[in-house]
């Protein structure tokens, strides 16, 4: 079954993605801390998940049957917070207080403090294995929710990711989908240089996962790949989303130095101009 998406649906999600990029950069600029590169690369994926795919209810963030999202690459917290705020889990004004002592928005997502955060994350590598437990719980309780895990490429260098991947396959967790934000750049430089992960898709296949490769900035492909993942029975799916670190801001794209530093005023304004204007 192939679902067709209208141009208008896609255009709307693209606009949301652009807004999430602007929100994220503004948060990082105001706080003078955060991770722009990996927030910009995953914005299209987050727009598709939070504004089309996931069954969630901002008025009822603890709804037991909601779909779950785990930001395994927890350093893209600004992006998650932007999505949650725009989706109505908490007031958008909270974003201006990120990192303040009394603000619920932590450096990395904290499920006990921020409404809509399903799993505390930040230390890399946990998403797949924790997601496996959540997906198993759904099966044990006969619930139909789906677990989405957004992975970074660099974090897949750690063994716990593959312990979790093995477990997901063993327990046949078709209700778990990982989306790999494969932007190919990590803190210290190119992934291919720091610790190559290729052949990436083959690794996942050999761990008995359904593997889909897409352009992670193409909303239509993101939506179709998630539909495809849902249709697979008996095994988990990974969507390898080829992305560009710093996507949308020319001087940040593919630059490791934009992994974890904040723009100054001039850079921020130039970035906003590229991302389609106003800061709101």
């Amino acid at each position, binding site marked *: 079954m192939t679902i067709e998406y209208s141009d208008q649906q896609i255009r709307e999600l693209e606009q949301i993605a652009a807004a999430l990029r602007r929100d994220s950069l503004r948060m990082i600029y105001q706080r003078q801390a955060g991770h722009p590169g990996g927030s910009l690369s995953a914005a299209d994926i987050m727009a598709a998940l939070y504004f089309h795919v996931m069954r969630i209810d901002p008025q009822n963030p603890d709804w037991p049957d909601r779909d779950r999202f785990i930001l395994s690459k927890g350093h893209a917290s600004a992006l998650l917070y932007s999505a949650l705020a725009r989706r109505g889990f908490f007031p958008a004004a909270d974003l201006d207080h990120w990192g303040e002592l009394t603000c619920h928005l932590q450096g990395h997502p904290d499920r006990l403090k921020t409404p809509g955060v399903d799993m505390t994350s930040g230390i890399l590598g946990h998403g797949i*294995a924790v997601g496996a437990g959540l997906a*198993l719980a759904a099966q044990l309780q006969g619930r139909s929710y789906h677990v989405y895990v957004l992975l970074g490429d660099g974090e897949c260098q750690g063994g716990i990711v593959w312990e979790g991947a093995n477990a997901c396959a063993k327990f046949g967790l078709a209700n778990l989908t990982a989306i790999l934000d494969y932007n190919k750049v990590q803190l210290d430089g190119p992934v291919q240089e720091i610790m190559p992960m290729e052949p990436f898709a083959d690794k996942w296949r050999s761990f008995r996962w359904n593997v889909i490769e897409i352009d992670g900035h193409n909303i239509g492909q993101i939506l179709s790949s998630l539909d495809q993942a849902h249709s697979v029975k008996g095994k988990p799916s990974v969507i390898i989303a080829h992305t560009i670190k710093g996507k949308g801001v020319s001087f940040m794209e593919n630059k490791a130095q934009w992994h974890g530093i904040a723009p100054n005023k001039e850079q921020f304004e130039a970035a906003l101009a590229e991302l389609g204007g106003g800061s709101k």
Partner: protein
Amino acid sequence: MSNPAMREAYGKALADYGAVNPAVVALDADTSSSTLSSYFASRFPTRFFNVGIAEPCMVDMSAGLALGGMLPFVNAFAALVALRALEQIRTCICYNRANVKIAASYAGVSDFKDGPTHHAITDIAIMRSLPEMTVIVPADAGEAAAFVKLIAEYDGPVYLRLNRSATQAVSQPDDNLQIGRGIVRRPGSDVTIIACGSMAGRSLQAADILAGRGVDACVLDMHTVKPLDNELILKMAGETGGVVTAEEHTVIGGLGSAVAELLAQEMPVPQACVGIKDTFACTGPDPETIMDAYGLGVRDIADAALKVMEKKIK
């Protein structure tokens, strides 16, 4: 009446409790025939998950299961779960406040055959330092079994430290076991011996020796190392004026340290710490022989008590 191994009592109690509470699930890392989570596995095969030799994965999965509304018991060798999976425990269980129970088997030197790689003599110190974590060290099989229900019905992360083998039985049917409430196993007025795990039984033996020397020793079974029963410890330290701690663990960071932290701030009295003295132990023919060789003997406890008696202000 026979005195079963602690792991045996735990394994059977977990299976029994599994019948009462359908939310309970058990995970193991290829050690179910050792930890005896196998009792649960054979009764509830659809609620048992063997993740292979991957303790970090097991701990992360348990966090996910807890978030999904299940009540996971994680089963593993203490040396592995408390060290290899420590970051998972800190981040995904404690900081995340996942309601997971960690049953850490083969603790102390009870895995005598496998040697220091498999001994767990630092786990109390490590687990005690984690915010949100409760640390329980049962003294015998009876306590190990009874704590299964108690920790399951307590909302929060728990580290339950179990011996591979049998320890001297100290528990009584009318114990009224409660998390965080120590038990007076023997009243006494001259010195207080505060013990956990296998050292509770040994401390009672030491108290007998001390009685022969005219010293009336009180023995506290401090099964909960965190939160510590401050009230009982301060009461008995006040009444006796001297304290000995005894644990099958390094002297750094465990029960002895916990008691010293309390007494130093609230009621400084002479204290001696019986434990493994910042060294690795060795392989041996049985746990008792190793314990005797590494300063955990009945005699060591009695000697420590006599030294404390000398230091008490007359």
